[in-house]
């Protein structure tokens, strides 16, 4: 139902820190029609070229300042993922994605106030790493 919200176009890029590419990052809108505290993010999954990324290699942030593992985010109730603002998703991978074309699939699920199952959205994009 909220697939259209997932994986904002042209946001997938490699991330460089202190002169080294530490991984890659993408942005998504929320799979819900309102903002929620980060603790209500049920799960985020990334698959690159068909290979599922281990959960422990994924970090999430609403401001690119404080980054959380998904386990840590379960207790983050004071930071809100606002409707209309992106969630930043980072995959830690030395060297990031290689130059060329990749297929990256993003899955995002949020818990909602009255619907018993989490609201999931999925989007796969073909992305170009320059």
């Amino acid at each position, binding site marked *: 139902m909220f697939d259209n919200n997932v994986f904002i176009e042209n946001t997938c890029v490699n991330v460089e820190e202190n002169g080294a590419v530490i991984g890659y990052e993408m942005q998504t809108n929320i799979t819900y029609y*309102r903002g929620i505290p980060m*603790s209500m993010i049920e799960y985020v999954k990334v698959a690159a070229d068909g290979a599922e990324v281990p959960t422990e290699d994924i970090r999430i942030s609403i401001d690119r300042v404080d980054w959380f593992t998904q386990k840590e985010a379960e*207790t983050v109730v004071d930071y809100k993922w606002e409707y*209309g603002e992106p969630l930043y998703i980072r995959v830690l991978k030395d060297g990031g994605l290689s130059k060329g074309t990749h297929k990256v699939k993003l899955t995002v699920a949020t818990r909602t106030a009255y619907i018993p199952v989490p609201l999931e959205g999925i989007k796969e994009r073909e992305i170009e790493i320059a």
Partner: protein
Amino acid sequence: MSRIKPCVSLYSLQNEYLTKSMTLKEIMQFVKEHGAEGIEILPDQMLKGSPDISEETLKEWKGLLEETGLKPVIADVFLNTNLYKNRTLTHRESIDLLIKEIKQASRLGIHLIRLVSMVPYWVCEPLLPYCEKYDVAIALEVHAGMAFDIPETKAFIAEMKRLNSPYVGLVIDTGIFCRKFPRVVREYETLNGTSRQVFDYIDTLFEQGTDLHAVLVKNDYQYPAELEAAIQSEHDRMFVPLCDGYENYDFSVLDEYMPFIKHFHLKLFEMTPEGPEYSMDYKALLTYLHEHNYDGYVATEYEGNRFTLPGKPFVEKEQVAANQAYIQKCLKEIQG
């Protein structure tokens, strides 16, 4: 004498906001231009930091109200009982969250809160002193699939009657008055792989004056043989429960609740080129409300945006404009 006033829920323009095509200011100006008198807002959707909005956000909100002259009628509030993954909030935690919402509504100049369906009845009594102090009423949404026959709604209504306070009431979503299954849903879900036979079966139920929810409840959630025959695949089987949210009640179901009804959502799936909404007869409903001396707002709540076909443009603005034009024309005819 009735005093029915047109309102727009900003929920209707959520994709415009999400994609940053329109700001809150532009949305409110648009609503004003189309003749609405009031607005409904989901603070969690369009006010950053809710329920603890900053003074700066509050100032901006008040400025927009002043500029447009729109009345802030109602705030749509949710209760995050599943805030944590490992446990449900306690009663006291739940009530504390709602106290925050009451205080915020008061800051926003709003005197009515829509509690989302399934909010438990036991919040009402502890909240009453806060409702009175801040002059903010709380009203449970009666929504299709979660309407009068659901235990949680029944319990809330019993508590509402017991408390018998002007600060506890109901919001009615007109999705409970569907006379036809929305064709925009059918088209969208057909593309997703749901079989024609499933929709044909649901259409026959509406033609018989009933709906899927009523049939399932009557059969204790066992699928009738005709439905089993219509299901062609596992996908169909998973989709059927999602067709529960379109009900076909007679307006008379409201008779006993009219004194408690604070607000209406005019659920909107599709305004057709010829005027009325595809599934619901708003004119008949507004006539019923007029005859029952309803004094309050009716708010356009467009939800067809969810069923926008891939590659097709969103038509939120067009649908809201068409709905307001039709409703205002009906109100003029009915109320003079």
